[in-house]
């Protein structure tokens, strides 16, 4: 098992799936000649040629639609959005075409497409380039939403996403691309819809996904120093949500804090909270709190930006609150 970056894990998944299935192709801005804006597709043009590694004009709505159309007739497109911020332009094709085709056609036409790219903030990219919009996709029946936090999951989940017969929105993290971890060589599949208990604990459950998993883990470490035992869950797939894993944990710890990068209003965390209180209300010893991105457009200034993001200190504070320690 090699230690590789999240970026290279994605690259491996793409390469292996393209080798396995000639119907898989990659399309997007700068995926070919430029080797990917974030180099996720490095080397793929050389290996698979321009028919299968397709550079597009800057036309997110258009090439998302091209992908959906190709998927409708049996190809398995992987559509790269340079960042998910730009996918706002393509939302009509994703929501009105991809998510509804199977239903409207009574099951005649499926759309086995993956739309992938980095979501959320990197560093100082400003308001238009720093959005974590997974809640938009997770809101829509017909879509699956996947957000790996580690290199191993990046590979295993992307392979599953590509093999899935549904439209899958696969959101990566620009700040995750360089992170390293052990990744099984070759066939390594992580099923969609299964959360991971990253760390067991007894006092409180921290639920997170994507970049926020690292925030939760750091918070757990700090809590440990204060003798608070946190269980950390990485959702991995946002839709379908692994409700069983969430409930099992909270039923054990009786307290929960949800950590996410996105905005609070009707965010993914709101759904998690609703599900917990709906299903195991009597197990809760305290309200479920959330630590989210601050409810403002992202500022450019470094200090303000830092303050706008979820961080371990905020998580620790929330945990103390649900434990009535202050």
């Amino acid at each position, binding site marked *: 098992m090699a230690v590789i970056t999240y970026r290279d894990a994605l690259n491996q998944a793409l390469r292996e799936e393209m080798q396995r299935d000639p119907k898989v192709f990659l399309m997007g801005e700068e995926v070919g000649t430029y080797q990917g804006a974030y180099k996720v597709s490095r080397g793929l043009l050389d290996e698979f040629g321009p028919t299968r590694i397709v550079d597009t004009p800057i036309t997110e709505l258009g*090439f998302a639609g091209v992908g*959906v159309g190709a998927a409708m007739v*049996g190809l398995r497109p992987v559509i790269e959005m340079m960042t998910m911020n730009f996918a706002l332009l393509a939302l009509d094709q994703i929501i009105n075409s991809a998510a509804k085709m199977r239903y409207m056609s009574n099951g005649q036409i499926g759309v086995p497409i993956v739309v992938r790219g980095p979501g959320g903030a990197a560093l100082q990219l400003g308001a238009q380039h720093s959005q974590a919009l997974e809640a938009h996709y997770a809101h829509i029946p017909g879509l699956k939403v996947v957000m790996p936090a580690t290199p191993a999951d990046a590979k295993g989940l992307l392979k599953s996403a590509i093999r899935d017969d549904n439209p899958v929105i696969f959101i990566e993290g620009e700040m995750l691309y360089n992170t390293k971890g052990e990744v099984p060589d070759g066939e390594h599949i992580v099923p969609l819809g299964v959360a991971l208990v990253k760390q067991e604990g007894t006092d409180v459950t921290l639920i997170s996904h994507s970049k926020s998993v690292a925030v939760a883990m750091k918070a757990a470490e700090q809590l440990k120093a204060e003798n608070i035992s946190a269980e950390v869950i990485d959702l991995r797939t946002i839709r379908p949500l692994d409700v069983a894993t969430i409930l099992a944990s909270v039923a054990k710890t009786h307290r929960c804090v949800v950590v996410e990068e996105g905005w609070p209003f009707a965010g993914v965390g709101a759904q998690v909270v609703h599900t917990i209180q709906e299903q195991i209300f009597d197990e809760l010893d305290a309200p479920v709190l959330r630590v989210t991105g601050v409810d403002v457009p992202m500022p450019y200034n470094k200090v303000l930006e830092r303050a706008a993001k979820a961080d371990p200190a905020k998580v620790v504070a929330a945990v103390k609150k649900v434990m009535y320690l202050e």
Partner: protein
Amino acid sequence: MASTTKPQRTSLDAATADQYRHYLRQMLQIRRFEEKAGEAYSLGKIGGFCHLYIGQEAVAVGSMASLRKDDYITCSYREHGQALARGITSRAIMAELFGKAAGCSGGKGGSMHLFDASLGFLGGHGIVGGHIPLTTGMAFAAKYNGTDQVGVCYFGEAAVNQGAFHEALNMAALWKLPAIYICENNRYGMGTALERASAIYDISERACSYDMANEVVDGQEVLAVKAAMDRAVKRAREEKHPTLLEVRTYRFMGHSMSDPIHGHYRTKEEVEEHRKRDPIALWSRTLIEDGVMTEETVKALDADVMTEIEDAYKFAEEAPDPDPSELFANVYAPEVTHNG
């Protein structure tokens, strides 16, 4: 301007004559189907939006005649005519309009979302312009797979102002995709005349932005449509070049069933004027003049079509609703285990 010269029909062999009669039957089928659908709508048997194709029949019939069984087709929400011309049965379409399980989309699609994957009929689509990139993707797939299939997209003249049109046509031309974009220019997008929505009058000229082959076609003459489509299909199938066809036609009815035939946006006189070039009347006359048919055989054909449509209506009416469990079916693909 649209070329209205009729192609020569000198050597009218038996097969061609059959074909020509078939075009008439198809146009009559669409006309009678739409009339019946309108009636059913007024009786509350069809719900939602319902956009009739009356007046535009020659476009669907003439263009579909050039296609092969394995080509890919997408349409807007005004697609009953194309669906019929492609060969979906009037029963399956009427049942869909009635929301019945036997409908071509299982009663879950409705008038705007007709599908028959087995015929490559890949949808009526409700978002103006939204299916233009989809067809482009299908043409991309044909090229990718190395087949000589063609992707054909029908849309209205108002759709060309959408960004999706621009983005898709640029890619189709850039990548030399076997796509045919059929703009059915019926002069209006709902209540907005072409010239109040587009900075240029000749939609076909939009192709220049992509260096794309293009043609203006008289959409009331079924053979003119067929001839232009033959050229476009050849260009797509053999030369792998896309085409934009601007087919000039006219919508004889309101935009949808809830829209009057002439409202604030066009006069009764204008509609009457255009009705003089009814594609069915024009084609019947030609066939009679050329001795391919007679007044009587035309009437008999029409009666035959009427019988079919009455049957479709009855079928749709009596067909059962989808099972309640259908509400949850086909949101996602059935789970399959992938193990490599």
